């Protein structure tokens, strides 16, 4: 029975099938919101109100010609998207969505899973760099370098931000942190700065406006993905969506009290909380212009990192005086 549960967990919910379907849905929500913000309609004609459009886009890309540049390192060029997608899908398994993972530690919920999760979410960034570098195209190389520069800008604030709930609850396990905040909802308010820093850093990790510097189309064409086409590009696109879902779920589990109540209510909480985060991400995309890489680095180290540190100080202070 347990084996079956594990299979269900990996393949159906919250594993591959769910992540695929839900991430396309989240992409639809994001596109629709973005369109509404801009007084447009957004996707309309595949499915009801364009609901199936992301899947249609994915299927279309899968069917397209797949070109590998002559001068590229073929093995690496082909492996990078698969590797990156696998990393993100694996990180999705660590989300504390199913009740059976709560009480006891298991392969998908253990002390330190928060670190593993942050690590798995950072892996695609390196994959992007490798993708850009092996493509041997000018634009891709530039995009790859920008990816790494960006990484050094947002990763530190991101890690500092996720540190604070862990310190507050005294646990390195997502399920424990979520349970703690469920029990003490008011303590969530102390972590608002951390949540804000986390959302901004997540936006940068997802490389969306205003931080879409690595693949700013008017500057470096497709950035690291310039030479990618067909199936591999589809994988990168899917990867970005899954990353958005997992990132939003990660922030919800850390700062918004997780997904209580077992299978069905937990699922509903998951949808509500991740969509709330996605709404913030979409709104951020709609109201800003893309900033330059030097401005981004300056912004991170002047504002984001100090804010995250301030959050840490607050948490340590509270922790010291907490009843």
């Amino acid at each position, binding site marked *: 029975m347990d084996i079956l549960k594990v299979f269900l967990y990996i393949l159906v919910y919250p594993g591959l099938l769910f992540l695929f379907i839900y991430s396309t849905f989240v992409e639809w929500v994001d596109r629709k919101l973005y369109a509404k*913000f801009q007084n447009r309609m957004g996707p309309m004609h595949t499915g009801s109100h364009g609901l199936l459009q992301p899947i249609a886009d994915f299927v279309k890309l899968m069917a397209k010609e797949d070109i590998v540049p002559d001068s590229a390192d073929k093995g690496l060029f082909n492996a990078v998207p698969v590797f990156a997608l696998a990393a993100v899908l694996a990180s999705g398994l660590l989300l504390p969505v199913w009740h059976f993972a709560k009480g006891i530690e298991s392969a998908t919920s253990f002390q330190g899973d928060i670190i593993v999760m942050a690590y798995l979410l950072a892996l695609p960034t390196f994959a992007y760099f490798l993708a850009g570098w092996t493509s041997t195209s000018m634009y891709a190389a530039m995009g790859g370098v920008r990816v790494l520069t960006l990484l050094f800008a947002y990763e530190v604030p991101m890690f500092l931000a996720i540190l604070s709930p862990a310190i507050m609850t005294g646990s390195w396990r997502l399920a424990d942190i979520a349970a703690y905040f469920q029990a003490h909802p008011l303590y969530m308010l102390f972590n608002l700065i951390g949540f804000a820093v986390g959302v901004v850093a997540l936006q940068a990790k997802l490389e969306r406006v205003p931080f879409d510097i690595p693949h700013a189309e008017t500057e470096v*064409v497709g950035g690291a993905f310039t030479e990618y086409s067909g199936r591999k590009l589809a994988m990168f696109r899917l990867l970005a969506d899954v990353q958005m879902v997992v990132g939003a779920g990660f922030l919800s589990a850390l700062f918004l009290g997780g997904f209580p109540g077992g299978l069905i209510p937990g699922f509903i909480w998951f949808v509500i909380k991740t969509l709330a985060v996605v709404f913030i991400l979409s709104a951020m995309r709609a109201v800003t*212009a893309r900033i330059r890489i030097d401005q981004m680095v300056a912004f991170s180290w002047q504002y984001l990192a100090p804010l995250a540190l301030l959050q840490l100080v607050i948490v340590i202070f509270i922790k010291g005086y907490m009843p």
Partner: protein
Amino acid sequence: MGTFILPVGPQHPALKEPTSFRFLVDGETVVDADLRLGYNHRGIEKGAESRTYVQNLYLLERVCGICSNAHMTCFAQGVEKLMGLEPPKRGLFIRCLMGELERVHSHLLWLGVAGHEVGFDTFFMYTWRDREIVQDMLEMISGNRVNYGMQTFGGVRRDLDEMQIKKLLEGIAALKARTPYYLNLGASEPTLVARIAGVGKLPLEKAVELNAVGPTARASGWKSDVRQDDPYAGFGEFIPFNIVTDQGGDVLARVVVRAKELMETYNICEYILKNLPAGEVRVKAPRKVPEGEVVSRVEAQRGEDVHYVRSNGTDKPDRVKVRAPTLANWPSTLYMLRGGYVADIPIVMAAIDPCLSCTDRMAIITDVKRGSEQVMDWETLRKHGIEFYRKRGIKL
């Protein structure tokens, strides 16, 4: 990373038209810039020599899509001078109105594109939505949204009726309210201002030395405007207007100049519509043009547009020379790009509002399977294309 050459164009998402830049780049900094034109050279000047004046009117209108009316006005008024025609006052007013409405649509278009180049798509969508108002107005007057075909020798081709004037005034009032609102919103958005302030600096002396024209020159503080320097149509005599300048010399200053020019243009349009004189809109033009030569200038939305027409007494011109404003601004653009960031390339290029009106080219097609380079001329390429589609079952 060391220095390397970054090609931008002839096909690149930052450029909506084909032109080729080669940038010598050191990391994220542009060291040197070079330009190659001609991807769009259609041989219009040569073609004009074998067509009649009436046909040329429409040929020259198609030099550029956005400033179609400016080119048409420039050619029409040049030939009018050769013919010795004096268009009626109402015709001149409508000629000015078309020019100004075109300026509105072009500047709104540009603001949107500037937003898109720095990744601010919301701003792009809002300005282009508002641009629809002026596009509908132009369609209502002329029957087309892009190539209006309103100018002719001796006046304009269509008259305005009362209903249209009322609708035009309504449209302009709506634009007059919306434009400053959105521009203020955009101007208070820190990420947008961070991208355009202090970028692409063109000092006044450089602007004059490199012969910049239009909003690019005016944003460097140079008060030059053909409408004032060399008044044409109704300007100077009948229609009052102000020239907008700014001292900044950067992209922000160019945005400010265009924004203020928009407001000024709305006022000009309102003035024209409220003071439209009665009478005819055109006089009859002869088919043959007496021998002579003329230099005609018009202030297009990108700057000074110059046409030189030489007639030889027949119904076809001996020589027509067109100089679109963008060509005059390339030297200063190359100056602005040097020493800047790679990330600033699109917005600095967009800041002069480039429009590339430039003969069919030979295309080089590399046959992948044979691995050899095969040079195809235009005719072979066309046949190749037809064959390509026929194989796929599409009847041509």
